[in-house]
């Protein structure tokens, strides 16, 4: 783990005290986002998302498998996020660690709990055969805010996924049935300041992190607080509001990028 020298910490704190960030963004402002889809032709759906220098590729593979015994008429989704050593000098090879596990579980819940994939439409033969949707997320370049980049890449990939029914000889291909997805926005707190979409430097300085996923109605669909620090109730409410505002803009860009 890189230890940000205290000098960097002080510099960021001093800037923040003047209402500024390293890259001149506002506290409630995201870095530029780009979303490209269909970047992997072997995948059923795929997307490359950049938030600033952070870069994530998500690919969707589908296959036919068995349903869980407690939901015999539902498809199955599996999410895996890998923090491969390609993306950062601090990521090591080997089985996923706490950080990667939290990331993939938060992305997974964001999609699963909001029922973004209509799993009940992915049954081929009750109790026997259903579609399995694998969401694989590769972090390519890590400059902060993986939660939002990974979640956005997964959504863009899902929204451009074609169910490969023909390949599996179970009918004609069709677009993966998808509901309106919530959008995830992450903020961090350092030295009493709360900023959205943290850069790597800001993340390394941060005492507390809060991810809020909101839907098109501005309702809350998922939250995850992280790190040793704390938030006040007021800070949380403010983060929610900023997340709703940014979520709206990002949702528009997402829809545009997937052609909807």
């Amino acid at each position, binding site marked *: 783990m890189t230890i940000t020298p205290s000098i960097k910490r002080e510099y960021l704190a001093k800037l923040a005290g003047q209402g500024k960030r390293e890259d001149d963004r506002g506290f409630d402002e995201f870095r530029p986002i780009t979303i490209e889809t269909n970047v992997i032709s072997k995948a059923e759906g795929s997307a490359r998302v950049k938030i600033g220098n952070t870069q994530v590729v998500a690919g969707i593979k589908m296959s036919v498998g068995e349903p869980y015994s*407690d*939901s015999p008429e539902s498809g199955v989704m599996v999410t895996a996020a890998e923090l491969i050593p390609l993306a950062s000098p601090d990521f090591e090879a080997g089985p996923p660690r*706490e950080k990667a*596990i*939290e990331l*993939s*579980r938060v992305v997974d*819940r964001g999609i699963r*709990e*909001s029922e973004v994939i209509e799993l009940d439409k992915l049954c081929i033969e009750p109790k026997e055969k259903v579609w399995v949707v694998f969401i694989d997320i590769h972090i390519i370049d890590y400059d902060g805010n993986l939660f939002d980049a990974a979640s956005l890449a997964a959504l863009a990939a899902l929204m451009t996924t074609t169910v490969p029914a023909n390949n599996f000889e179970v009918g004609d291909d069709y677009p993966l049935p998808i509901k309106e997805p919530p959008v995830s926005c992450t903020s961090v707190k350092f030295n009493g300041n709360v900023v959205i979409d943290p850069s790597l430097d800001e993340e390394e300085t941060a005492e507390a992190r*809060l991810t809020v996923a909101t*839907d098109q*109605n*501005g*309702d*809350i*669909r*998922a*939250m*995850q*607080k*992280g*790190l*040793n*620090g*704390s*938030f*006040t*109730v007021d800070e*949380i*409410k403010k983060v*929610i509001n900023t997340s*709703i505002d940014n979520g709206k803009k990002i949702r528009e860009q997402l829809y545009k990028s997937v052609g909807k």
Partner: protein
Amino acid sequence: MKSDIKLFENGKRLDGRKPDELRNIKIETGVLHRAEGSCYLEWGGNKVIVAVYGPREAIPRHTQNPLRAIVNARYNMAAFSVDDRKRPGPDRRSREISKVISEALGHAIFLERFPRASIDVNIEVLEAEAGTRCAGLTAAGVALVDAGIPMRDIPVACAAGKIEGQVVLDLGKEEDNFGSADLPIAISPRTGEILLLQMDGHMTGDEFNTALDMAIKGCHTVSEIQKKAITEKYQKTEGD
């Protein structure tokens, strides 16, 4: 999952509780011989036991932080703690919970007093019935006091949630399975700061505010039970 069970009817929940009513909680401290601090907690059908070891030299060495202690909470479910036997050993869920509990506890401890050390908080779930992460964190807070770890405050946890449009405190098992949102939090009761917060499901902004408020109140109630357990232990010890 959908269900035909009516979770909320005539102002009452399945198990007869009112919306803002906690399940029964029983806390006992100093229950283990080997551990430096320990706590046994029952919370509704949950049974949790916590043992604290440390501060001691963190191993392996590369986990040491030269400026402060690390908190190494390990949330583990016994194979027999759930309806379908759980394979022994950590899984992804338990590792995520261990991480968020470690982070929440860390805020309360004077970590900077113990550079290079680890404070190991072993949370063993003997029986699970919705809300084990809140139960585990709450028991951990008491066990840390029992171990004499210097702390700013005793962290405490409680969840609120939503069932059939109604915001309620401390979801039970069916409420957790069939309800529409769950919001477990942990706070520092002296300052009211939020140390842990997760949310799954669907809430409007207003519902969230109500739920957060209710969960914080719940935390304060649980905090009183924590303190009583600690006081009783010390009174007993003095009486010896």
